[in-house]
């Protein structure tokens, strides 16, 4: 029996919801997991929603000042499906503004790592990972464009699943880069995720790119390591990861080392496509109908728009400028069009490897960093942190991040990638791992005694 079904079936003690909410609010003051928490928690399994996914009647800002006060008139399809299946809305989780970041620091109040508050929670779905790490019975609806589920799940020691592109409807998701955005799930076990994935996947008439396919679980009992990815990373991360690989071998998997052409082009291709699309998505924020606006309506519309758009954070502004550049007529062929070709090539190469087995890597090239330290990173150093998470994200491949060890009290995580539509294989693999490895958490808010 799965823990969600168990939780839904059991009787909660009187005042359960109130106690949960008050403990959560207290923890949230320190950890900044939530941008807002519901006043009344209904019966049913609590679920949180990343703040770039619309919940009817609840302020949805994608952690951006420019969307302050935006209250959607509709539920995202994913949210509606959760509500229709006995889940209770708990609150909106913190994130890097519009999903722009790998550490959660591009938010007014960055989320903090529950294992140690001086450490980063990862991003951009930082709050979703923190919430999962501190709540005993809860699932998080998160979103990944280039690694926004894997990265924070890794740093906060939870399981983060990003399905095949199109598996979960994007209707109601505030776009970062539409051809890359995927709604996904975080939980404390692969089996909880599998249960929720069963509810959320499937076609949606409101999202043209949603898929209508059967999700498989095919396992060739082989693990592919892409050598270029595992070199040039933190030495501790590398040695711990190779130790983990030995354990996987012990579980009966054949380990294969491979090198992959064009893998070094994944980061630039990703950032070019992501920024090009982001710069068009962010064009709509002109302070006209919702969110931040200049109260002075007497200026001309160009000045009015410019004033409103000053509310974007630094990283958002950077991506608007770069994204507008790479799609401009004079350089489009050199950047945007080239990146699209490389994406197709990279998918081809990844598919070749996936025909042999699953691809495994550390989730992040570094150990969980201190908040102080990531704030010092340059934009380029930041982007390089996505080296492991970008390949599957760029190509829309399902992948899952899960903890495999704890060092100095902080989790270390690995990421498994499978082929399009073989989503359940990724979940089943982690379920298999969980039989011999128990995850640790510092908080268990809402625990039933």
């Amino acid at each position: 029996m799965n823990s969600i079904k168990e939780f839904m079936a059991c009787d909660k003690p009187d005042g359960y919801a109130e106690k949960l909410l008050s403990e959560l609010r207290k923890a949230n003051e320190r950890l900044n997991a939530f941008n807002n928490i519901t006043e009344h928690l209904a019966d049913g399994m609590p679920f949180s929603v990343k703040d770039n996914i619309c919940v009817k009647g609840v302020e949805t800002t994608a952690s951006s000042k420019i969307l302050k006060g935006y209250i959607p008139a509709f539920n995202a399809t994913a949210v509606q499906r959760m509500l229709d299946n006995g889940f209770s809305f708990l609150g909106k989780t913190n994130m890097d503004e519009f999903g722009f970041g790998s550490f959660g620091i591009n938010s007014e109040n960055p989320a903090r790592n529950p294992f140690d508050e001086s450490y980063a929670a990862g991003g951009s779905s930082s709050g979703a990972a923190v919430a999962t790490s501190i709540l005993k019975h809860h699932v998080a609806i998160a979103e990944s464009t280039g690694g926004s589920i894997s990265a924070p799940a890794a740093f906060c020691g939870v399981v983060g699943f990003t399905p095949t592109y199109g598996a979960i409807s994007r209707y109601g998701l505030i776009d970062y880069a539409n051809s890359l955005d995927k709604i996904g799930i975080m939980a404390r076990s692969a089996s909880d995720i599998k249960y929720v994935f069963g509810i959320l996947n499937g076609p949606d008439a409101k999202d043209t790119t949603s898929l209508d396919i059967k999700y498989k679980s095919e396992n060739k009992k082989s693990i592919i390591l892409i050598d270029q990815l595992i070199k040039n990373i933190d030495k501790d991360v590398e040695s711990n990861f190779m130790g983990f690989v030995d354990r996987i071998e012990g579980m009966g998997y054949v380990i294969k080392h491979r090198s992959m052409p064009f893998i070094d082009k994944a980061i630039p291709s990703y950032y070019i496509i992501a920024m090009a699309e982001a710069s068009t998505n962010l064009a709509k924020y002109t302070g006209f109908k919702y969110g931040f606006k200049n109260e002075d309506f007497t200026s001309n519309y160009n000045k009015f728009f410019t004033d409103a758009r000053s509310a974007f954070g630094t990283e958002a502004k950077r991506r608007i400028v770069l994204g507008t550049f790479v799609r401009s007529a004079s350089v489009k062929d050199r950047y945007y069009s080239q990146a699209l070709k490389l994406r197709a090539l990279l998918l081809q190469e990844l598919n070749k490897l996936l025909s042999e087995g699953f691809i495994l890597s550390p989730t992040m090239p570094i150990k969980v960093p201190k908040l102080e330290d990531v704030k010092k990173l340059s934009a380029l150093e930041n982007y390089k942190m996505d080296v492991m998470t970008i390949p599957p994200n760029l190509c829309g491949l399902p992948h899952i991040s899960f903890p495999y060890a704890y060092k100095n009290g902080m989790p270390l995580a690995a990421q498994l990638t499978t082929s399009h539509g073989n989503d359940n294989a990724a979940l089943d693999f982690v379920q298999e791992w969980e039989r011999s490895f128990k995850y640790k958490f510092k908080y268990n808010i809402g625990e039933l005694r």
Partner: protein
Amino acid sequence: MKIGLEVHVSLPTESKLFCSCRTYAEEPNTAICPVCTGMPGSKPVLNERALSIAVNIARALMCKVPTATSFVRKVYFYPDLPKSFQITQKDGPVGVDGKLFLEDGKEIRIRRIQLEEDPAKILRQDDYTLIDFNRSGTPLVEIVTEPDILNEKELREFMTELKSILYYLGVDIDRELKADLNISLSDVRVEVKNITGTKNLLDAAKYEIERQEKAIKSKQGIIHETRSYIEKEMSTAPSREKESDEEYGFIFEPDLTIYSTKRTNPVKAVYASKLAKEYANKYKVKEAAMRELILFNRDALALIESSKGKYDMKAIITAIELLQRYVKGKSRTSSETLGKVASLVEKGMYPDKETILQIEAGKDTNLGGNAASTAEIDKEIKQLIKENSALLKEYKKNTKVFNFIVGSVMKKYKANPRLVSERLEKILSSFRQ
């Protein structure tokens, strides 16, 4: 002189291009939803009916229609554009390299045809501006010609032919036509943007041709610029827009997919202009009369086609005119009714409203008999002239009397007014000699 056109026509769909809102509503901002107001989180879903109509337009204008079509984002900032980008087509339009023939057979090349969404409507008041999003997201087709139109006459003809072809595809563009006019008398191109309606388009062209002619004669020169049409003054003036080609930063619309044009329901194009010429030659009637009758009249065309060869075409034309005058609210008159009316006309009769309605209702058993002979008509005319001789002396000035006599004879004998008029003229002129 070279004229090129970009014509925008709105498509007759029930719902908008990317959402299920109605395409029209009286009250401002009532046919709107998160998609057509660009609310964060909303996603476009293509109205396949609109695609179908656009593909049929491309086929009717003899375009190459690619097997797959796709959309792009065209980014620019303007208050009527809620997403700050318009979903339109660029590399994958519904049609390219088409053509349209003018009356004399001259070919005007069509460069491309694309499907796109209309922005909202801006209503400028004295010191503020209102925006009505009812129009936002309604489907438009943009038809771009090569600069093959060489004068005002060709421009007028082009518009007539285009409108007729679109009319027969169910796209009535009289009300909602918008066009950009590219016009160059020298080697400098001037664009007149956002002209509404065919009349304004022709007036704008006329003004612009005269303006450029004068400028060339006076050696003032013409500058490459964008102008707008001022309806009140029937003139054009430089618009405030920038002259340089704007940077739209087109990218593929990633919320949509690639659509097959094969799935669309093909509708056969009707070239009424060509048919008018054919029928005019075949049935020995005036081409102008035939064009007048069928260019924008699918019922008339259907009636002609259903009665081909059975009656004299002149009688058919008269019968159709009569039926359309008297049988209102009926979209289609049966070919049987047409036949009966036409046979009366052929006999020289001119059935009145009452008779037409009887035929239409199927109560026409006693309508047989023959039309009055010319002798009978002459006799009646002469009688009436005798009764009104005083007034008739000045009949040239007094058309009332003339019409009275024609009317009386028509009524009595159900005679064709043309025939009666002819006879009356003849008799009157013989009196004077």
